[in-house]
């Protein structure tokens, strides 16, 4: 039940998947909105603080997710899927993982370029590694912004593909992640 089997996702995998969905879209919305806040907005300091806090928690969750995936079996692809669909979904999943890490690491690098730690909800803090390369805050900021757009676009495509399998192909793809 908790663990994955060859035919079904376990509770842990499903919980992390849907939590990630909420966090990624939440972070994207807040991030998109907060960069245009005026200096005198009451959210000017709070929104970035929460954005960074949630982002660090997502980084921890995603790292644990990979660990869980590694120690666990992964459900086999659905047999009715064509080889190209199997291949495409495998690549898409891999790219989503890569983009998630690039996004979170670039975010970390923006805030820590001057050796300042990141406070996670005044609960604990993640130490900085300092300036690892020249123009770190600017380059990381650029990557963070555009990778976020790509990840959100790919996530929507990923969701749309699942809905397409459910509605048009009438297979188990979406149900496996919900039930």
């Amino acid at each position, binding site marked *: 039940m908790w663990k994955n089997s060859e035919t079904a996702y376990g509770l842990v995998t499903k919980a992390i998947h849907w939590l990630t969905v909420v966090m990624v879209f939440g972070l994207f919305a807040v991030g998109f909105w907060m960069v245009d806040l*005026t*200096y005198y907005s009451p959210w000017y300091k709070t929104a970035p603080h929460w954005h960074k806090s949630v982002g660090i928690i997502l980084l921890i969750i995603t790292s644990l997710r990979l660990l869980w995936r590694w120690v666990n079996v992964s459900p086999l692809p659905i047999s009715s899927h064509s080889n190209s669909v199997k291949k495409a979904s495998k690549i898409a999943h891999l790219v989503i993982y890569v983009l998630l890490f690039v996004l979170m690491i670039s975010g970390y690098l*923006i*805030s*820590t*370029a*001057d050796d*300042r730690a990141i406070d996670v909800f005044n609960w604990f803090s993640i130490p900085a590694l300092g*300036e690892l390369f020249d*123009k*770190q*805050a*600017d380059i990381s*900021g650029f990557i963070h912004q555009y990778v976020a757009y790509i990840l959100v676009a790919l996530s929507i495509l990923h969701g749309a593909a699942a809905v397409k399998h459910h509605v048009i192909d009438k297979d188990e793809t979406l149900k496996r992640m919900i039930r």
Partner: protein
Amino acid sequence: MKKLFIATALLSTSLLTPLYAADYIIDTKGAHASINFNTKHMGFSVLTGRFNTFNGSFSYDEANIAASKIKVTIDTTSIDSNHAERDKHLRSDDFLSAGKFGTATFTSTTVEDKGNGKLAIKGDFTLHGITKSIVIDAIKIGEGSDPWGGYRLGFSGTTQIAMGDFGFKMDFGKVNLNLYIEGIRQ
């Protein structure tokens, strides 16, 4: 003997105070110069920062101060307020648009001798693609030979600009600029 003679001759020349207009290069290599700014933080306190990269030169003639000239070029991407996130914001389109306007320049037009080592340096300041005439109130600090065979002359200068005059999207009012310029005679 000949070598000693040349060395003595060179040394004694460098010890002489110039009686003519001399050209100086601002010692940014040895970082004996700085361009600092400060502005009020919401009326609570004062925020300070500086531009780490700039270069410039000036000419100065004690006997004819009005003929003095100075030109300084500032790399706006080198802004440093000791906070990476804020510096990133200051470089963005809300303030400096440093990607588009990577340099700011000051070129003097007239220099007025105010006496007692004080000067009023009027010139064109280009920042954020906008050129305005500003006046830098400068004070000569000192001049003389350094221990390494060079000749140095230094000034401090202050001026004030308004963010609104230079078309910043975010306008927090006035910014004070403080400069310390040490030149090595060429």
